[in-house]
């Protein structure tokens, strides 16, 4: 059985983007934009259900960036009074930005990280939520665990990493009875020069984050060549590993121990819509050469980088390809 599903922030519609621009110019209120995004979330949920995707997400349409709601919940504001004023920082490999969390002390769980209001619209066995991985959070934040030049202070970094893993586990346990799938997104592990040095702690952080979680878990890696993390990558304590074949040398997975892999066969950085036949071919090549013990077809990274209309065409073909593979 080949699965297919989404894995991160989905693009907002042109109407919602226009409403955002109007908000900036004072011509629309936050509440109006919020209502519009709620409506679009429900539309996206319905689309995923209609396409019979194996898991359904809310598309994180209300997230300003892939860390902000978490940062706001945890109060990681640095000098400023709110998360919307933390320094603006580019997400490498993209033309998108995030507000850098600032860790100035031990992080405590103040309130829920995830807004689960949309779960009610999805059958429990299909509910999926997405969180940043412990490493992504620690690596992309600033504060006590970083030197003045932005490099990491190894010991404090490991403390922050494990501290955040505990926070994630708290949230994952809270949601574990409500959802079937928890995915951790990691846009930096594959390119980080420090990953190998910190590997033991990275593994520990995922063990902590996933401890006593009944839901299926995955770690989706994008940006950078994840094959450089082999063979340890396949020993990480998650059920599935997600890989971006545009930045990862898949040939290095030949002959490795079989794992459930999520392969990013549709490219979120290009408007070129992959044909169903191409996706099927890609999947068959992976099955034949890598022999994973499970396969999910996913975008190579969150689809937020293409217009919504293009993203919809891409996932329609993704769903058709999975259906075609499963019907044979």
């Amino acid at each position: 059985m080949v699965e297919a599903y989404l894995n991160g922030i989905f693009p907002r519609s042109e109407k919602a983007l226009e409403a955002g621009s109007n908000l900036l110019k004072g011509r629309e209120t936050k509440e109006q934009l919020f209502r519009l995004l709620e409506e679009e979330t429900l539309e996206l949920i319905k689309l995923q259900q209609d396409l019979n995707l194996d898991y359904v997400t809310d598309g994180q349409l209300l997230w300003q960036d892939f860390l902000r709601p978490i940062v706001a919940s945890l109060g990681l504001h640095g000098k400023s009074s709110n998360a919307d004023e933390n320094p603006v920082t580019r997400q490498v490999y993209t033309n998108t930005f995030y507000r850098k969390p600032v860790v100035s002390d031990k992080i405590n769980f103040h309130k829920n990280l995830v807004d689960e209001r949309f779960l009610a619209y999805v059958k429990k066995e299909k509910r999926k939520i997405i969180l940043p991985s412990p490493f992504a959070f620690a690596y992309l934040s600033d504060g006590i665990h970083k030197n003045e030049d932005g490099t990491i202070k190894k010991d404090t970094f490991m403390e922050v990493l494990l501290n955040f893993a505990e926070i994630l586990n708290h949230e994952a346990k809270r949601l574990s009875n409500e959802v079937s799938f928890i995915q951790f997104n990691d846009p930096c592990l594959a390119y980080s020069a420090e990953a190998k040095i910190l590997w033991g702690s990275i593994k520990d952080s995922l063990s902590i984050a996933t401890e006593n979680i009944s839901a299926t878990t995955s770690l989706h890696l994008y940006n950078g060549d994840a094959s450089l993390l082999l063979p340890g990558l396949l020993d990480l304590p998650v059920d599935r590993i997600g890989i971006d074949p545009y930045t990862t040398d898949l040939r290095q997975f030949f002959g490795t121990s079989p794992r459930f892999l999520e392969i990013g066969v549709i490219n979120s950085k290009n408007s070129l819509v992959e044909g169903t036949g191409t996706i099927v071919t890609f999947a068959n090549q992976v099955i034949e050469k890598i022999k994973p013990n499970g396969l999910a077809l996913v975008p190579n990274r969150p689809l937020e980088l293409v217009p919504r209309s293009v993203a919809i065409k891409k996932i329609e073909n993704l769903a058709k390809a999975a259906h075609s593979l499963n019907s044979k």
Partner: protein
Amino acid sequence: MTLPLFPTQEIGSLQKPSWRVKGLLGKAAEEDLKELSLWYAKLHLQDRIPVVKELINNIKLEKDKTALASLKQRLKEESQIFGLKFLEEAGLDIIYDGEQTRVEMYEDPIGDIGGFEFCGYVRAFDVMKYKKAACVAEPSFKKPYHLEEFRFLKNATQHELKIPITGAYTLAEWSYNEYYGKKNQPDVFGLFGSEKKDRREMAIALARNVIRPNIKSLVDNGAKWVQIDEPAATTYPDEVGLVVETFNESVRGLDVKASIHMCFSDYKVFFPAILEMKNCFQYAWEFANTDSAALGTSRKARTGYKTLDLFKEHKAGGNIGLGVLNVHTDFIEPPELVRDRILYASSLLGADKIYVNPDCGLRTRTLDVAFAKLKNMVEGAKLARSQYNH
């Protein structure tokens, strides 16, 4: 024109006034005209108010397409004068027009380059969006797209003009790559690295076929200084060499002062590749975004300026365009804070290397906030200068 120590300069776009935006759509209302009158009085442009109001009114009434296009062009020119005067009145030494005729730094040039088709809007940051295009054929030169704008401004000011032009690498990185993607389509194992190869082909073609001919046309018409904007420069840390290569190709053999603006990046990755940039007059980077608002010229106070160490460490040539205004907050930096940021930078690199500017374009802020920030920037530069004159 002789520039003072710590020359102040603009770095990019300003917000477009509502009378200009709605006026072009034929939808300017009473409140927009009120804003026009207020700003024009502030900028000592009162004598132009009747002209602009008449233009706005005529745009509402005009039915003939050709006549309408001409009226719209004239209103855009009025907003260019507004942009120039806005920066002059704020007291800046090196100016442009706040990019009043341009839709946006990507969409505007792409529309005038052969080989691209627009696909739709995506989000860049928070609620900021931009319109993305796909490269569907080899990029080609259609026309010198900033020439008309520059010619108009040259005749409208005595100030030194610095013309911003979006760089080849950024245009390539922000575009979808259907043409080279299709041309080089591999199997699933060949996807690895394919995007990089495709992007390289597109970026080099843009520098050679489009950006260089554009800069040449500006130089042939009297331009002395172009600022190549490369906000995408650190998108892929291992592609900084390509940014350098496209910069060099874009200005190859041209007699012009060429500088580069980058922002919101991990600047460490530029070194040492950036040292290969040929004759780069100035590196204008963002710093205030990550700096503390505390006064002081100590290293501890100036947390946002640690990147300057890299210039010293690598003995990099060229000047620094020092970002002293955070363009993402309404906080109006006091002149004393601007002064301390300048003094800290000059203590590290030498006073004669420091130019003073906002972190990036101020179009993220209202005109009121942008003006107040710029005025204080100019005052801050004066305060810093006075330390050297004593």
